[in-house]
Every structure is written in structure tokens, then in C-alpha cells.
């Protein structure tokens, strides 16, 4: 018996006014004209709700780049889904926010690149920091949940305390301090983004202190770079186990980056019911459960905790999606992670990088 998915992550567009160097979108972005229509998305939300999904995450690209965002939120809300907008804030005004809340928006997750204007612009390849800071005050006036997301990496970790203090002034209930994950554009720019061990240690101390200081005011969640972990992360809570992602074109993926794995055929919601894709499509079955596992995962006592780690990372680092995630210290390919880590030990980080663009 396959448990039903709990959350649907929808990349409703790949359009984005920002060009962040750590974007997890694929290098080949989906063109605007190929995006699903309003009606197609709403139908997917209805199918997801029937399948048992509780949370709907609207992301991108920048979801606000879609003119029909209000209708999409209304469509999700009317099926009973908890609607979450994951946004840079670019393209949102007070009036538009009011219309989204009116349509049933439950939660907004606003991303910041930094606490300072200059570095934020450098990371995003575009202006926007000051606008977001004002927008955050506006968001706080609406009766919805508010989370601030801050992506951290080698270039901003040295002022982590300052960034937490900046976020504190925005009064979100939650802050997610997300260490960059190395997929898509972030993998391309890894040498400039991977933190040093010292930065990581200082960061964890700063986060712990802030968690204590701000208890009851702001929940601080910090997801550490798995490059520095002993064991891999339980990517997406296990392949085809809890989450489903739909790309702008309608392809259903078990993980954000799964499109990079060669030889996989991902069914499109334009052609197949969501329920079939979840329970029967070959792509969702491919790494579900334990049958696919090689050693050392197969006999590992942690196999039901981390599910062998991330399949996309196994492919991106070791060249084979069917092996143990190389971040695991037991992986035969773990030396590849050690090489990447030792590149981050050098004093001066290389800072020539690729901005996210539609040219790939």
C-alpha cells in the first residue's frame, strides 16, 4: 500500500526577475508559452486534494510573474488545500497581496538574499532588496502566516548575526535559514558558495543563540548543508513517499532536480491522472521503498530514516542515480564530497559565477 502524498509543490512558472546564483531551478528553463494554463493547474489541485494532499506550495521561478496567481490560489483554497506562496516578493503590491489573501492564501514565504542592499544585489543579479524590506512590513499586516527564507553560503555567512537581526525586525513567525543545496545553478557555482567548516561552526552557534533569545517570538529552522553532514538528508522525505513536484510544463517529478537523471520518463499531468502518476508511473516507482538500494544502504540501519539520500545528488556527483548519496561517509564515492569541501578551505574564494538566465 503506497501512502498518499502530503504536499504538492508546483513550479507555476520559471519566469523570474531575479537571477540568483544559487537557484535550484534546472539550467534549462521552461519557456512561458509551454506553461500550464489556469484551468490545467486548478484541475491538478483538485486531483491532489482527492489524493490526500494537504499542502499546496506555489513556487517558481517567481510565482507572482503569473497574472493569474489569484485564481490559482483561489482554486487551491476551494479544494481545501493549505496554500503557501514561495516568493521573492517582486511583483507583489499591497493591493495584489490583499487580493491573494482574499482568495484564500494561508502562508507566504518571502526570500531575502542578505541583510544588506549591495550583497543582495550581487547575489540576485538584480535590484529588489529595499522593495522586499518594505513589502515585509505590508505582509505582516495581513492575517496570514509569514516566514522569511534566507539562503546562506560562503559569501554571506560571515555576518549571519546581522542577517538574523535584520529578519527579526520584519516580525515573521518563522525564519528558515537554508544552507545552499547544490543543484541547478548552485552546483554550477559551488566553489564560490560552499562555506568553510569554520563559517559553518560559527553559524550553528549564532543560530542556537538566536533560537534561545527569540523563543516564542520567532521559530528558527536551520537546514545545514549536507556536504558537511555525516549522513545524507532524507531527500523529499523519500522518493515518491510524501511529495510531488509539478514543473511549469506539467511534468510530475519526485524531486526538484529529478529532471537531470538520464533515462527517466516523467509523466505529464496533461496526459495522465495525478493518482496514476503517483501510484503507478515508472518514475515514481523507480526509487521508492528499499528494493532499488545498493550496499551500503541495503543493510544499513538508517535506510528507513534517510532512504539512501538524494538520487539527483548521487547522479550529479557520482554519475549514477542508483548509488548511495555520496555525502554519506559510508559511500564509496564520498571522496568526491571531500574534494569539494577541501576546495572551500582556501582563504580566498573564487567569485566569478554564473547568474541564472533563461539561456542556460
Amino acid at each position: 500500500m503506497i501512502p498518499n502524498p502530503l504536499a504538492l509543490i508546483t513550479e507555476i512558472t520559471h519566469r523570474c526577475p531575479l537571477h540568483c546564483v544559487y537557484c535550484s531551478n534546472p539550467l534549462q528553463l521552461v519557456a512561458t508559452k509551454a506553461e500550464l494554463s489556469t484551468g490545467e493547474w486548478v484541475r491538478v489541485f483538485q486531483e491532489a486534494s482527492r489524493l490526500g494532499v494537504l499542502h499546496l506550495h506555489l513556487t517558481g521561478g517567481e510565482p507572482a510573474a503569473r497574472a493569474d496567481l489569484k485564481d490559482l490560489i483561489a482554486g487551491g483554497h476551494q479544494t481545501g488545500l493549505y496554500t503557501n506562496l514561495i516568493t521573492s516578493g517582486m511583483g507583489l503590491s499591497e493591493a495584489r497581496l490583499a487580493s491573494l489573501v482574499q482568495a484564500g492564501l494561508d502562508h507566504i514565504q518571502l526570500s531575502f538574499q542578505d541583510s544588506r542592499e549591495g550583497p543582495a544585489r550581487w547575489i540576485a543579479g538584480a535590484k529588489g532588496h529595499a522593495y522586499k524590506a518594505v513589502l515585509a512590513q505590508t505582509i505582516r499586516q495581513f492575517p496570514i502566516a509569514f516566514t522569511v527564507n534566507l539562503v546562506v553560503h560562503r559569501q554571506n555567512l560571515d555576518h549571519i548575526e546581522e542577517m538574523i537581526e535584520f529578519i527579526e525586525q520584519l516580525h515573521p513567525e518563522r525564519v528558515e535559514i537554508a544552507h545552499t543545496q547544490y543543484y541547478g545553478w548552485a552546483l554550477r557555482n559551488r566553489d564560490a558558495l560552499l562555506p568553510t567548516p569554520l563559517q559553518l561552526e560559527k553559524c550553528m552557534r549564532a543560530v542556537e543563540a538566536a533560537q534561545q533569545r527569540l523563543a516564542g517570538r520567532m521559530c528558527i529552522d536551520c537546514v545545514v548543508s549536507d556536504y558537511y553532514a555525516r549522513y545524507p538528508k532524507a531527500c523529499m522525505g523519500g522518493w515518491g513517499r510524501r511529495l510531488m513536484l509539478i514543473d511549469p510544463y506539467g511534468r510530475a517529478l519526485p524531486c526538484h532536480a529529478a529532471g537531470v537523471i538520464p533515462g527517466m520518463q516523467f509523466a505529464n499531468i496533461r496526459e495522465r491522472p495525478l493518482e496514476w502518476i503517483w501510484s503507478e508511473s515508472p518514475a515514481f516507482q523507480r526509487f521508492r521503498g528499499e528494493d532499488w538500494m545498493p550496499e551500503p544502504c541495503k543493510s544499513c540501519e538508517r535506510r528507513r530514516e534517510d532512504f539512501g539520500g538524494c538520487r539527483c545528488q548521487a547522479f550529479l556527483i557520482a554519475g549514477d542515480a542508483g548509488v548511495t548519496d555520496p555525502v554519506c561517509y559510508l559511500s564509496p564515492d564520498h571522496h568526491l564530497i571531500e574534494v569539494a569541501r577541501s576546495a572551500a578551505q582556501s582563504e580566498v574564494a573564487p567569485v566569478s559565477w554564473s547568474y541564472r538566465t533563461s539561456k542556460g
Partner: protein
Amino acid sequence: MPRPSETSQPHLASGCRWSMQGEKRVVLFPEGMIRVQDTGRGILELCDGLRTVQEIVATLAERYNKADPARIREDVLSFLEALQRKRIVDY
């Protein structure tokens, strides 16, 4: 944030709401949900932003008439405090 007082009027925080998962009542919040059962559900269902902590304790004491009211009060306060820290409840 201190513990709730006798006159606090607890309620679900902004963006947290009741829903159903199949036949079960759940509370949805950003990135998660809680399947509330038994006592927890009894407490949370009374947190409507109007009832005071004192009234909630009195209602529960009447419902579980064999339980010690002081014990119920302690359970209510620690439950609400724990959920407030997760920003699921405000008071």
C-alpha cells in the same frame, strides 16, 4: 514569551487552521500539520480566542470530572506554551 495567564484568550495563530485528513481532524500550519487527539484536541477546540484559560480549565474539569483541576490547569498551560513556541497558538 511568558506562560498564558488566567485571563489569556488563546487561539490558533495567523495562518494556522483546522482541516480534515480523511476522518481525522488536524491543524494545518506552514510546512506541517498536527493530528490532535484526546486531551490535546479537547484543549485546542476550546481555543477560540473568546474563552479565557480559566474558562477552558473549568470546561475541561467538568468534562473529565474525576480529574484534578490543578492537574488539568497544568496540562493546559504547558500544552499552550509548547504550541506558542511553535507559533501555532497565540494568547
